[in-house]
Protein backbone atom coordinates (compact mmCIF):
# COMPACT_ATOMS: atom_id res chain seq x y z
CA UNK A 1 0.00 0.00 0.00
CA UNK A 2 1.47 3.32 -1.05
CA UNK A 3 1.35 6.44 1.11
CA UNK A 4 -1.16 7.89 -1.39
CA UNK A 5 -3.45 4.92 -1.01
CA UNK A 6 -3.05 5.13 2.74
CA UNK A 7 -4.22 8.74 2.61
CA UNK A 8 -7.38 7.79 0.69
CA UNK A 9 -8.30 5.26 3.33
CA UNK A 10 -8.16 7.80 6.14
CA UNK A 11 -11.75 8.62 6.90
CA UNK A 12 -11.89 9.75 10.46
CA UNK A 13 -9.85 12.31 12.43
CA UNK A 14 -9.02 9.66 15.02
CA UNK A 15 -7.43 7.53 12.32
CA UNK A 16 -5.47 10.52 11.06
CA UNK A 17 -4.28 11.36 14.58
CA UNK A 18 -3.20 7.78 15.17
CA UNK A 19 -1.30 7.74 11.86
CA UNK A 20 0.45 11.02 12.66
CA UNK A 21 1.40 9.73 16.10
CA UNK A 22 2.69 6.52 14.56
CA UNK A 23 4.74 8.35 11.94
CA UNK A 24 6.30 10.70 14.48
CA UNK A 25 6.97 8.07 17.12
CA UNK A 26 10.67 7.83 17.82
CA UNK A 27 11.40 11.18 16.24
CA UNK A 28 13.50 13.15 18.68
CA UNK A 29 12.35 16.72 19.14
CA UNK A 30 14.16 19.60 20.77
CA UNK A 31 13.10 18.42 24.20
CA UNK A 32 13.77 14.72 23.74
CA UNK A 33 16.72 12.62 24.76
CA UNK A 34 17.30 9.21 23.23
CA UNK A 35 18.80 6.88 25.83
CA UNK A 36 21.43 4.39 24.74
CA UNK A 37 22.15 1.11 26.43
CA UNK A 38 25.54 -0.16 27.56
CA UNK A 39 27.08 -3.63 27.68
CA UNK A 40 25.98 -3.84 31.33
CA UNK A 41 22.32 -3.92 30.29
CA UNK A 42 22.17 -4.42 26.52
CA UNK A 43 18.41 -5.00 26.55
CA UNK A 44 17.58 -1.71 28.23
CA UNK A 45 15.79 0.92 26.19
CA UNK A 46 14.56 4.37 27.01
CA UNK A 47 13.99 7.96 26.21
CA UNK A 48 13.49 11.11 28.20
CA UNK A 49 11.69 14.39 27.73
CA UNK A 50 12.73 17.68 29.21
CA UNK A 51 9.79 19.38 30.92
CA UNK A 52 10.02 22.69 32.65
CA UNK A 53 10.23 22.37 36.39
CA UNK A 54 7.15 23.72 38.23
CA UNK A 55 7.18 27.50 38.27
CA UNK A 56 4.57 30.21 38.79
CA UNK A 57 5.87 31.81 35.60
CA UNK A 58 5.50 28.85 33.27
CA UNK A 59 9.17 28.70 32.34
CA UNK A 60 11.50 27.82 35.19
CA UNK A 61 14.87 29.59 35.33
CA UNK A 62 17.78 29.84 37.71
CA UNK A 63 18.89 33.25 38.92
CA UNK A 64 21.56 33.34 36.25
CA UNK A 65 19.16 32.47 33.47
CA UNK A 66 19.58 28.75 32.91
CA UNK A 67 16.41 26.84 32.17
CA UNK A 68 15.42 24.39 34.90
CA UNK A 69 14.05 21.10 33.68
CA UNK A 70 12.58 18.00 35.16
CA UNK A 71 13.22 14.76 33.32
CA UNK A 72 10.36 12.50 32.30
CA UNK A 73 12.14 9.19 31.76
CA UNK A 74 10.55 6.18 30.09
CA UNK A 75 12.58 3.01 30.40
CA UNK A 76 12.11 -0.64 29.63
CA UNK A 77 14.24 -3.73 29.81
CA UNK A 78 16.08 -2.67 32.94
CA UNK A 79 17.12 -5.87 34.71
CA UNK A 80 16.86 -6.30 38.45
CA UNK A 81 19.60 -4.06 39.88
CA UNK A 82 20.82 -6.95 42.01
CA UNK A 83 21.65 -8.86 38.83
CA UNK A 84 24.44 -6.35 38.21
CA UNK A 85 25.99 -6.60 41.68
CA UNK A 86 25.28 -5.23 45.14
CA UNK A 87 22.71 -2.78 43.89
CA UNK A 88 19.08 -2.17 44.81
CA UNK A 89 17.90 0.63 42.55
CA UNK A 90 18.52 2.75 39.50
CA UNK A 91 19.32 6.44 39.80
CA UNK A 92 19.29 9.19 37.17
CA UNK A 93 22.04 11.79 37.11
CA UNK A 94 22.57 15.05 35.24
CA UNK A 95 26.27 15.07 34.46
CA UNK A 96 28.37 17.98 33.23
CA UNK A 97 30.05 17.40 29.84
CA UNK A 98 33.48 17.18 31.45
CA UNK A 99 32.12 14.43 33.76
CA UNK A 100 33.25 16.31 36.86
CA UNK A 101 29.79 17.25 38.16
CA UNK A 102 27.24 14.50 38.89
CA UNK A 103 23.90 15.85 40.13
CA UNK A 104 21.50 13.23 41.42
CA UNK A 105 18.02 13.60 39.91
CA UNK A 106 16.22 10.67 41.50
CA UNK A 107 15.32 7.00 41.28
CA UNK A 108 14.24 5.42 38.00
CA UNK A 109 12.29 2.24 37.26
CA UNK A 110 10.91 0.51 34.21
CA UNK A 111 7.96 2.57 33.00
CA UNK A 112 7.71 6.34 33.23
CA UNK A 113 9.33 8.26 36.04
CA UNK A 114 9.73 12.01 36.50
CA UNK A 115 12.85 13.19 38.29
CA UNK A 116 14.57 16.53 38.66
CA UNK A 117 15.86 19.14 38.52
CA UNK A 118 18.58 19.75 35.91
CA UNK A 119 19.77 23.27 35.26
CA UNK A 120 22.92 22.79 33.19
CA UNK A 121 23.16 24.28 29.72
CA UNK A 122 24.58 21.07 28.27
CA UNK A 123 24.59 17.81 30.14
CA UNK A 124 24.50 14.05 29.93
CA UNK A 125 21.58 12.12 31.36
CA UNK A 126 23.02 8.99 32.93
CA UNK A 127 21.19 6.16 34.67
CA UNK A 128 23.24 3.93 36.92
CA UNK A 129 22.64 1.02 39.25
CA UNK A 130 23.20 2.05 42.87
CA UNK A 131 23.07 0.59 46.37
CA UNK A 132 20.62 3.30 47.48
CA UNK A 133 18.86 6.38 46.16
CA UNK A 134 20.57 8.90 48.41
CA UNK A 135 24.21 8.70 47.42
CA UNK A 136 25.82 11.97 46.42
CA UNK A 137 27.97 10.36 43.75
CA UNK A 138 27.57 7.50 41.35
CA UNK A 139 29.25 4.24 42.26
CA UNK A 140 27.52 1.67 40.08
CA UNK A 141 27.56 0.73 36.40
CA UNK A 142 25.85 2.81 33.74
CA UNK A 143 22.84 1.14 32.11
CA UNK A 144 21.42 4.00 30.01
CA UNK A 145 22.76 7.34 28.91
CA UNK A 146 21.93 10.20 26.59
CA UNK A 147 22.85 13.76 25.73
CA UNK A 148 20.75 16.86 26.29
CA UNK A 149 19.54 18.32 22.97
CA UNK A 150 21.73 21.37 23.57
CA UNK A 151 24.75 19.06 23.53
CA UNK A 152 24.21 18.27 19.87
CA UNK A 153 24.11 21.83 18.59
CA UNK A 154 27.74 22.08 17.58
CA UNK A 155 28.81 19.89 14.69
CA UNK A 156 32.45 19.44 13.85
CA UNK A 157 33.19 17.63 10.67
CA UNK A 158 36.89 17.25 10.27
CA UNK A 159 37.46 13.89 8.63
CA UNK A 160 35.56 11.44 6.44
CA UNK A 161 35.28 9.14 9.43
CA UNK A 162 33.30 11.85 11.18
CA UNK A 163 30.98 12.73 8.36
CA UNK A 164 28.70 9.76 8.53
CA UNK A 165 29.82 8.85 5.04
CA UNK A 166 32.82 6.84 4.15
CA UNK A 167 34.22 8.59 1.14
Amino acid at each position, binding site marked *: MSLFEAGRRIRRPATLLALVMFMTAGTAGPYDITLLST*PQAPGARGHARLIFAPSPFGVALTQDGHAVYDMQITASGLPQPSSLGAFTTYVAWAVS*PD*LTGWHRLGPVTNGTTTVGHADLNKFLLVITAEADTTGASSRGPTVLHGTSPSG*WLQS*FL*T*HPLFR*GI*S*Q
Partner: protein
Amino acid sequence: MRTSFVLLAALGLAASAQAQDPGTAVRPFDKKHGGSPNMHMLAHVVTHPGAWKLADVEMEQDPNRPYVYACGFTNFDVQIYDVRDPSHPKKIYDWTIEHPELHRGIGAMDGKYFKIGNRYYYAQSYQFMQGSPDTDLGAVIFDVTGLPDASKVKVVARLRYPQAPGGFHNTFAYKHSDGRVLYFATVNEQKALVYDLDKVVSGADSSTWLIGSVPNPTPFKQIGTGSYHDFYVGYDPATHQDKFYGAGLGGYSVWDVTHPEAPKQLFTITGLGMDIAHTFTPSPDGRYAVTETEYQYTPLRVWDLSEGQSGKTQNLDLPISAWTADWRDLAHNHEVRWPYVFVSAYEDGLQVFDLKNPTQPKTDGYYYTCECTHEHGFGGTPDNGWESTISVEQGAFGVDVRNYDGLIALSDMRTGLWLFRMDGFKGWNGKEYGVRDISSVQDYDHGPVGAPSNGASAGARKQQR
Protein backbone atom coordinates in the same frame (compact mmCIF):
# COMPACT_ATOMS: atom_id res chain seq x y z
CA MET B 1 55.94 7.66 -46.73
CA ARG B 2 55.06 4.13 -45.70
CA THR B 3 58.38 3.86 -43.86
CA SER B 4 57.58 7.03 -41.93
CA PHE B 5 54.23 5.66 -40.77
CA VAL B 6 55.84 2.46 -39.61
CA LEU B 7 58.51 4.41 -37.79
CA LEU B 8 55.95 6.69 -36.14
CA ALA B 9 53.84 3.72 -35.14
CA ALA B 10 56.83 1.97 -33.68
CA LEU B 11 57.87 5.07 -31.75
CA GLY B 12 54.34 5.51 -30.44
CA LEU B 13 54.17 1.90 -29.35
CA ALA B 14 57.51 2.17 -27.62
CA ALA B 15 56.49 5.36 -25.80
CA SER B 16 53.19 3.93 -24.66
CA ALA B 17 54.84 0.69 -23.58
CA GLN B 18 57.27 2.65 -21.42
CA ALA B 19 54.52 4.69 -19.81
CA GLN B 20 52.10 1.85 -19.32
CA ASP B 21 52.17 -0.36 -16.27
CA PRO B 22 51.76 -3.88 -17.63
CA GLY B 23 49.99 -4.71 -14.38
CA THR B 24 48.74 -8.03 -13.17
CA ALA B 25 45.29 -9.43 -12.73
CA VAL B 26 43.76 -8.22 -9.50
CA ARG B 27 43.14 -10.87 -6.91
CA PRO B 28 39.49 -11.77 -6.22
CA PHE B 29 38.34 -10.23 -2.97
CA ASP B 30 37.62 -13.61 -1.39
CA LYS B 31 41.15 -14.79 -2.18
CA LYS B 32 42.93 -12.12 -0.19
CA HIS B 33 44.61 -14.28 2.43
CA GLY B 34 48.22 -14.81 3.41
CA GLY B 35 51.09 -13.00 1.75
CA SER B 36 54.04 -13.03 -0.58
CA PRO B 37 56.76 -15.61 0.12
CA ASN B 38 59.21 -12.94 1.29
CA MET B 39 56.87 -11.50 3.92
CA HIS B 40 56.89 -13.39 7.21
CA MET B 41 54.09 -12.93 9.69
CA LEU B 42 55.58 -13.21 13.17
CA ALA B 43 52.53 -12.55 15.31
CA HIS B 44 48.87 -11.58 15.21
CA VAL B 45 47.04 -10.30 18.30
CA VAL B 46 43.26 -9.94 18.29
CA THR B 47 43.31 -6.86 20.47
CA HIS B 48 39.60 -6.30 21.09
CA PRO B 49 36.43 -8.38 20.91
CA GLY B 50 34.24 -6.14 18.75
CA ALA B 51 34.01 -5.39 15.03
CA TRP B 52 36.47 -2.50 15.25
CA LYS B 53 39.83 -2.96 16.92
CA LEU B 54 42.64 -0.53 16.15
CA ALA B 55 43.45 2.76 14.51
CA ASP B 56 47.15 3.63 14.35
CA VAL B 57 50.24 1.92 15.74
CA GLU B 58 53.55 3.27 17.09
CA MET B 59 56.78 1.45 17.84
CA GLU B 60 59.64 2.65 20.01
CA GLN B 61 63.04 2.69 18.29
CA ASP B 62 65.63 2.19 21.03
CA PRO B 63 67.00 -1.38 21.13
CA ASN B 64 66.48 -1.63 24.88
CA ARG B 65 62.83 -0.54 24.72
CA PRO B 66 60.82 -3.12 22.73
CA TYR B 67 57.42 -1.50 23.06
CA VAL B 68 54.53 -1.19 20.63
CA TYR B 69 51.57 1.12 21.23
CA ALA B 70 48.22 0.12 19.74
CA CYS B 71 45.57 2.84 19.47
CA GLY B 72 42.22 1.32 20.40
CA PHE B 73 40.07 3.40 18.01
CA THR B 74 36.38 3.20 19.01
CA ASN B 75 37.35 1.14 22.04
CA PHE B 76 38.86 4.37 23.43
CA ASP B 77 41.92 2.65 24.91
CA VAL B 78 45.64 2.36 24.27
CA GLN B 79 47.41 -0.94 24.71
CA ILE B 80 51.16 -1.35 25.16
CA TYR B 81 52.84 -4.55 24.02
CA ASP B 82 56.28 -5.84 24.94
CA VAL B 83 57.68 -7.34 21.72
CA ARG B 84 61.13 -8.38 22.92
CA ASP B 85 60.08 -11.73 21.47
CA PRO B 86 58.30 -10.56 18.30
CA SER B 87 56.68 -13.93 17.87
CA HIS B 88 54.98 -13.60 21.24
CA PRO B 89 53.85 -10.03 21.91
CA LYS B 90 52.84 -9.56 25.51
CA LYS B 91 50.26 -6.97 26.51
CA ILE B 92 51.63 -5.14 29.53
CA TYR B 93 49.40 -2.07 29.83
CA ASP B 94 45.89 -0.98 28.84
CA TRP B 95 44.49 2.46 29.59
CA THR B 96 40.97 3.61 28.73
CA ILE B 97 39.33 7.00 28.89
CA GLU B 98 37.31 7.45 32.06
CA HIS B 99 33.65 6.41 31.68
CA PRO B 100 34.15 5.01 28.18
CA GLU B 101 30.49 4.01 28.01
CA LEU B 102 29.50 7.70 28.03
CA HIS B 103 31.81 8.70 25.20
CA ARG B 104 31.00 8.82 21.50
CA GLY B 105 33.43 9.26 18.66
CA ILE B 106 36.21 7.55 16.82
CA GLY B 107 38.29 7.68 19.97
CA ALA B 108 41.95 6.69 20.25
CA MET B 109 43.40 7.49 16.83
CA ASP B 110 47.11 8.26 16.66
CA GLY B 111 50.03 7.64 18.99
CA LYS B 112 53.55 9.06 19.15
CA TYR B 113 56.31 8.35 21.61
CA PHE B 114 59.02 10.88 22.43
CA LYS B 115 61.96 11.34 24.75
CA ILE B 116 62.99 14.40 26.75
CA GLY B 117 66.16 14.14 28.79
CA ASN B 118 66.25 10.60 30.07
CA ARG B 119 62.50 10.13 30.26
CA TYR B 120 60.24 8.53 27.68
CA TYR B 121 56.68 9.65 26.98
CA TYR B 122 53.77 8.59 24.83
CA ALA B 123 51.04 10.86 23.46
CA GLN B 124 47.71 9.25 22.58
CA SER B 125 45.46 11.42 20.43
CA TYR B 126 41.69 11.32 20.88
CA GLN B 127 38.63 12.40 18.92
CA PHE B 128 35.20 12.61 20.48
CA MET B 129 32.16 13.93 18.67
CA GLN B 130 29.36 16.28 19.53
CA GLY B 131 27.18 15.02 22.34
CA SER B 132 30.10 13.25 23.99
CA PRO B 133 32.23 14.23 26.94
CA ASP B 134 35.81 15.32 26.21
CA THR B 135 35.09 16.90 22.83
CA ASP B 136 37.91 19.32 23.61
CA LEU B 137 40.41 16.57 24.40
CA GLY B 138 43.21 16.28 21.86
CA ALA B 139 45.73 14.01 23.54
CA VAL B 140 46.65 12.26 26.76
CA ILE B 141 50.36 12.26 27.61
CA PHE B 142 51.85 9.32 29.53
CA ASP B 143 55.25 8.98 31.19
CA VAL B 144 56.27 5.49 30.09
CA THR B 145 59.87 5.55 31.33
CA GLY B 146 59.18 2.77 33.83
CA LEU B 147 58.13 0.17 31.27
CA PRO B 148 57.87 -2.77 31.38
CA ASP B 149 56.63 -2.10 34.93
CA ALA B 150 53.09 -0.98 34.08
CA SER B 151 52.53 0.34 37.60
CA LYS B 152 55.01 3.10 36.83
CA VAL B 153 53.14 4.38 33.79
CA LYS B 154 51.45 7.69 34.67
CA VAL B 155 49.21 10.17 32.89
CA VAL B 156 51.14 13.43 33.16
CA ALA B 157 49.11 15.83 31.01
CA ARG B 158 46.09 16.25 28.77
CA LEU B 159 46.07 18.55 25.77
CA ARG B 160 42.72 20.25 25.34
CA TYR B 161 41.68 22.66 22.62
CA PRO B 162 38.12 23.87 23.32
CA GLN B 163 38.35 26.50 20.58
CA ALA B 164 37.76 23.74 18.00
CA PRO B 165 36.16 20.64 19.50
CA GLY B 166 36.80 17.32 17.84
CA GLY B 167 40.27 16.47 19.09
CA PHE B 168 43.47 15.60 17.23
CA HIS B 169 43.18 13.19 14.32
CA ASN B 170 46.88 12.97 13.50
CA THR B 171 50.02 14.05 15.27
CA PHE B 172 53.78 14.14 14.73
CA ALA B 173 56.47 14.32 17.41
CA TYR B 174 59.58 16.10 16.11
CA LYS B 175 63.03 16.73 17.53
CA HIS B 176 63.60 20.22 16.18
CA SER B 177 67.02 21.46 15.14
CA ASP B 178 66.82 24.03 17.93
CA GLY B 179 66.71 21.21 20.47
CA ARG B 180 63.04 21.39 21.40
CA VAL B 181 60.73 18.39 21.11
CA LEU B 182 57.61 19.62 19.30
CA TYR B 183 54.21 18.04 18.86
CA PHE B 184 52.30 18.91 15.70
CA ALA B 185 48.57 18.17 15.85
CA THR B 186 45.69 18.39 13.43
CA VAL B 187 42.70 20.24 14.72
CA ASN B 188 39.31 21.21 13.40
CA GLU B 189 40.56 24.57 12.14
CA GLN B 190 42.52 25.70 9.08
CA LYS B 191 45.83 25.11 10.77
CA ALA B 192 47.99 22.62 12.61
CA LEU B 193 48.89 23.27 16.23
CA VAL B 194 52.47 23.19 17.52
CA TYR B 195 53.13 22.33 21.18
CA ASP B 196 56.41 22.47 23.09
CA LEU B 197 56.40 19.07 24.76
CA ASP B 198 59.00 19.97 27.36
CA LYS B 199 56.63 22.61 28.68
CA VAL B 200 53.77 20.10 28.64
CA VAL B 201 55.50 17.36 30.61
CA SER B 202 57.40 19.64 32.96
CA GLY B 203 54.24 21.06 34.45
CA ALA B 204 54.67 24.55 33.04
CA ASP B 205 51.68 26.85 32.90
CA SER B 206 49.37 25.29 30.28
CA SER B 207 48.97 28.66 28.59
CA THR B 208 52.59 28.34 27.44
CA TRP B 209 52.28 24.87 25.90
CA LEU B 210 51.00 25.96 22.51
CA ILE B 211 53.80 27.85 20.77
CA GLY B 212 52.54 28.21 17.23
CA SER B 213 50.48 26.98 14.34
CA VAL B 214 50.92 26.21 10.66
CA PRO B 215 48.12 27.52 8.42
CA ASN B 216 46.53 25.33 5.77
CA PRO B 217 46.94 27.51 2.67
CA THR B 218 44.50 25.48 0.57
CA PRO B 219 41.40 25.17 2.73
CA PHE B 220 38.73 23.29 0.82
CA LYS B 221 35.81 24.62 2.82
CA GLN B 222 33.20 22.61 0.98
CA ILE B 223 34.30 19.65 3.09
CA GLY B 224 34.50 20.32 6.79
CA THR B 225 36.56 23.25 7.91
CA GLY B 226 39.59 22.99 5.68
CA SER B 227 41.81 21.45 8.30
CA TYR B 228 44.99 19.48 7.94
CA HIS B 229 44.71 15.72 8.00
CA ASP B 230 48.25 14.52 8.45
CA PHE B 231 51.83 15.69 8.20
CA TYR B 232 55.51 14.86 8.36
CA VAL B 233 58.24 17.09 9.72
CA GLY B 234 61.89 16.64 8.83
CA TYR B 235 65.19 18.45 8.69
CA ASP B 236 66.66 19.46 5.33
CA PRO B 237 70.46 19.45 5.70
CA ALA B 238 70.88 21.09 2.30
CA THR B 239 69.01 24.23 3.27
CA HIS B 240 69.36 23.91 7.05
CA GLN B 241 65.63 24.22 7.47
CA ASP B 242 63.13 22.26 9.49
CA LYS B 243 60.36 21.51 7.00
CA PHE B 244 56.71 20.69 7.53
CA TYR B 245 54.98 18.60 4.85
CA GLY B 246 51.26 18.95 5.42
CA ALA B 247 48.31 17.20 3.81
CA GLY B 248 45.07 19.04 4.26
CA LEU B 249 41.69 19.49 2.72
CA GLY B 250 42.43 21.18 -0.58
CA GLY B 251 45.97 19.95 -1.17
CA TYR B 252 49.47 19.62 0.19
CA SER B 253 51.83 22.30 1.41
CA VAL B 254 55.44 22.58 2.51
CA TRP B 255 56.49 25.06 5.18
CA ASP B 256 59.75 26.20 6.68
CA VAL B 257 59.23 25.72 10.42
CA THR B 258 62.80 26.47 11.46
CA HIS B 259 61.14 29.09 13.61
CA PRO B 260 57.88 27.30 14.46
CA GLU B 261 56.45 30.43 16.01
CA ALA B 262 56.56 32.01 12.51
CA PRO B 263 56.24 29.37 9.76
CA LYS B 264 57.01 30.40 6.17
CA GLN B 265 55.18 28.81 3.25
CA LEU B 266 57.45 27.29 0.58
CA PHE B 267 55.19 25.64 -2.03
CA THR B 268 52.03 23.62 -2.52
CA ILE B 269 50.65 20.66 -4.43
CA THR B 270 47.13 21.20 -5.68
CA GLY B 271 45.08 20.09 -8.63
CA LEU B 272 42.33 17.79 -9.75
CA GLY B 273 41.84 14.89 -7.38
CA MET B 274 43.94 16.49 -4.63
CA ASP B 275 41.04 17.86 -2.59
CA ILE B 276 41.02 15.18 0.09
CA ALA B 277 44.75 15.23 0.69
CA HIS B 278 45.57 12.80 3.45
CA THR B 279 49.26 11.92 3.85
CA PHE B 280 52.48 13.50 2.56
CA THR B 281 55.88 11.89 3.15
CA PRO B 282 59.11 13.07 1.50
CA SER B 283 62.28 11.17 0.72
CA PRO B 284 65.20 11.81 3.10
CA ASP B 285 66.58 14.55 0.84
CA GLY B 286 63.21 16.09 0.11
CA ARG B 287 63.61 15.46 -3.62
CA TYR B 288 60.66 13.08 -3.90
CA ALA B 289 57.46 12.55 -1.98
CA VAL B 290 54.66 10.00 -1.66
CA THR B 291 51.13 11.31 -1.16
CA GLU B 292 47.79 9.75 -0.42
CA THR B 293 44.30 11.07 -1.14
CA GLU B 294 41.42 9.53 0.77
CA TYR B 295 38.89 8.27 -1.71
CA GLN B 296 38.25 4.91 -3.30
CA TYR B 297 40.08 4.01 -6.54
CA THR B 298 42.83 6.58 -5.99
CA PRO B 299 46.46 5.40 -6.07
CA LEU B 300 49.37 6.68 -4.03
CA ARG B 301 51.09 9.34 -6.08
CA VAL B 302 54.83 9.97 -6.35
CA TRP B 303 56.12 13.50 -6.86
CA ASP B 304 59.39 15.11 -7.86
CA LEU B 305 59.54 18.11 -5.54
CA SER B 306 62.68 19.64 -7.05
CA GLU B 307 61.04 22.66 -8.62
CA GLY B 308 59.12 23.41 -5.45
CA GLN B 309 62.09 22.98 -3.15
CA SER B 310 64.27 25.20 -5.35
CA GLY B 311 61.67 27.93 -5.49
CA LYS B 312 61.28 27.62 -9.25
CA THR B 313 57.55 27.06 -8.85
CA GLN B 314 55.02 27.77 -6.14
CA ASN B 315 52.75 24.86 -7.00
CA LEU B 316 53.11 21.35 -8.36
CA ASP B 317 50.22 19.55 -10.00
CA LEU B 318 51.66 16.61 -11.96
CA PRO B 319 52.97 13.49 -10.24
CA ILE B 320 55.72 11.43 -11.83
CA SER B 321 54.20 8.05 -11.06
CA ALA B 322 51.60 6.23 -9.02
CA TRP B 323 51.17 2.94 -7.21
CA THR B 324 48.20 0.91 -6.04
CA ALA B 325 47.80 -2.54 -4.55
CA ASP B 326 44.36 -2.95 -6.13
CA TRP B 327 42.71 -0.19 -8.13
CA ARG B 328 39.30 -1.11 -6.67
CA ASP B 329 40.43 -0.25 -3.13
CA LEU B 330 42.35 2.49 -1.36
CA ALA B 331 45.70 2.54 0.39
CA HIS B 332 45.93 4.40 3.68
CA ASN B 333 48.98 5.49 5.71
CA HIS B 334 52.58 4.86 4.78
CA GLU B 335 56.10 5.06 6.14
CA VAL B 336 59.05 5.85 3.89
CA ARG B 337 62.42 4.14 4.43
CA TRP B 338 63.87 5.20 1.13
CA PRO B 339 63.60 3.63 -1.39
CA TYR B 340 61.05 1.42 0.39
CA VAL B 341 57.51 2.53 1.15
CA PHE B 342 55.61 0.54 3.77
CA VAL B 343 51.88 0.91 3.28
CA SER B 344 48.94 0.08 5.50
CA ALA B 345 46.64 -0.49 2.56
CA TYR B 346 43.22 -0.91 4.19
CA GLU B 347 41.60 -4.02 2.58
CA ASP B 348 44.95 -4.95 1.00
CA GLY B 349 46.78 -5.24 4.31
CA LEU B 350 50.50 -4.63 4.50
CA GLN B 351 52.08 -3.68 1.17
CA VAL B 352 55.69 -2.73 0.48
CA PHE B 353 56.85 -1.12 -2.73
CA ASP B 354 60.10 0.55 -3.70
CA LEU B 355 61.05 3.69 -5.55
CA LYS B 356 64.49 2.61 -6.71
CA ASN B 357 63.22 4.09 -9.95
CA PRO B 358 60.76 6.74 -8.73
CA THR B 359 59.00 6.79 -12.06
CA GLN B 360 58.30 3.06 -11.86
CA PRO B 361 57.22 1.92 -8.39
CA LYS B 362 57.63 -1.80 -7.87
CA THR B 363 55.78 -3.96 -5.37
CA ASP B 364 58.19 -5.94 -3.17
CA GLY B 365 55.95 -7.78 -0.72
CA TYR B 366 52.54 -7.93 0.89
CA TYR B 367 50.39 -9.68 3.48
CA TYR B 368 46.60 -9.53 3.62
CA THR B 369 45.37 -8.78 7.15
CA CYS B 370 41.80 -7.51 6.77
CA GLU B 371 39.97 -10.82 6.30
CA CYS B 372 36.92 -8.72 5.49
CA THR B 373 34.11 -8.27 2.99
CA HIS B 374 34.85 -5.70 0.28
CA GLU B 375 33.10 -2.36 0.73
CA HIS B 376 31.77 -3.14 4.18
CA GLY B 377 34.07 -0.68 5.88
CA PHE B 378 33.86 2.06 8.42
CA GLY B 379 31.08 4.62 8.16
CA GLY B 380 27.81 5.78 9.56
CA THR B 381 27.54 6.48 13.25
CA PRO B 382 28.05 4.70 16.56
CA ASP B 383 24.35 3.86 16.49
CA ASN B 384 24.76 1.51 13.52
CA GLY B 385 28.04 0.14 14.79
CA TRP B 386 30.03 2.35 12.41
CA GLU B 387 29.18 -0.12 9.61
CA SER B 388 28.84 0.93 5.98
CA THR B 389 28.07 -0.92 2.76
CA ILE B 390 29.96 1.47 0.50
CA SER B 391 33.18 2.08 2.39
CA VAL B 392 36.59 0.53 1.75
CA GLU B 393 37.93 2.13 4.94
CA GLN B 394 38.65 -1.06 6.83
CA GLY B 395 41.65 -3.25 7.35
CA ALA B 396 45.22 -2.03 7.63
CA PHE B 397 45.14 1.45 9.17
CA GLY B 398 48.66 2.17 10.41
CA VAL B 399 52.17 0.88 9.93
CA ASP B 400 55.49 1.49 11.63
CA VAL B 401 59.02 0.26 10.96
CA ARG B 402 61.75 -0.24 13.56
CA ASN B 403 64.91 1.12 12.02
CA TYR B 404 67.52 -0.82 13.96
CA ASP B 405 66.26 -4.27 12.95
CA GLY B 406 63.53 -3.86 10.35
CA LEU B 407 60.62 -5.14 12.44
CA ILE B 408 57.30 -4.07 10.91
CA ALA B 409 54.23 -3.40 13.07
CA LEU B 410 50.81 -3.03 11.50
CA SER B 411 47.44 -2.15 13.01
CA ASP B 412 44.31 -3.47 11.35
CA MET B 413 40.89 -1.95 12.04
CA ARG B 414 39.24 -5.36 11.72
CA THR B 415 41.78 -7.82 13.02
CA GLY B 416 44.15 -6.08 15.46
CA LEU B 417 47.93 -5.99 15.78
CA TRP B 418 50.36 -7.74 13.41
CA LEU B 419 54.15 -8.06 13.36
CA PHE B 420 56.20 -8.91 10.25
CA ARG B 421 59.65 -9.21 8.82
CA MET B 422 60.49 -8.94 5.13
CA ASP B 423 63.33 -10.91 3.59
CA GLY B 424 66.29 -8.68 2.80
CA PHE B 425 65.11 -5.80 4.97
CA LYS B 426 67.07 -6.02 8.20
CA GLY B 427 66.87 -2.41 9.22
CA TRP B 428 67.41 1.02 7.78
CA ASN B 429 69.75 3.93 8.33
CA GLY B 430 69.92 5.21 4.78
CA LYS B 431 73.57 4.38 4.17
CA GLU B 432 72.91 1.30 2.10
CA TYR B 433 70.89 3.42 -0.30
CA GLY B 434 73.13 6.47 -0.34
CA VAL B 435 70.82 8.75 1.62
CA ARG B 436 70.99 10.29 5.07
CA ASP B 437 69.37 8.73 8.11
CA ILE B 438 66.23 10.84 7.88
CA SER B 439 62.78 9.33 8.32
CA SER B 440 59.87 9.73 10.71
CA VAL B 441 62.12 8.21 13.40
CA GLN B 442 63.60 10.91 15.65
CA ASP B 443 67.01 10.96 17.28
CA TYR B 444 65.91 12.48 20.56
CA ASP B 445 69.43 12.41 22.02
CA HIS B 446 71.32 14.07 19.19
CA GLY B 447 68.79 15.97 17.11
CA PRO B 448 68.32 15.86 13.33
CA VAL B 449 71.05 14.52 11.08
CA GLY B 450 72.90 17.39 9.46
CA ALA B 451 71.66 20.03 11.86
CA PRO B 452 74.06 22.47 13.52
CA SER B 453 75.28 21.40 16.92
CA ASN B 454 72.65 23.41 18.77
CA GLY B 455 70.16 20.60 18.40
CA ALA B 456 72.53 18.10 19.89
CA SER B 457 73.70 20.40 22.62
CA ALA B 458 70.12 21.15 23.63
CA GLY B 459 69.52 17.43 23.82
CA ALA B 460 72.63 17.04 25.89
CA ARG B 461 71.44 19.76 28.21
CA LYS B 462 68.21 17.82 28.76
CA GLN B 463 70.22 14.70 29.47
CA GLN B 464 72.04 16.51 32.23
CA ARG B 465 68.90 17.39 34.10
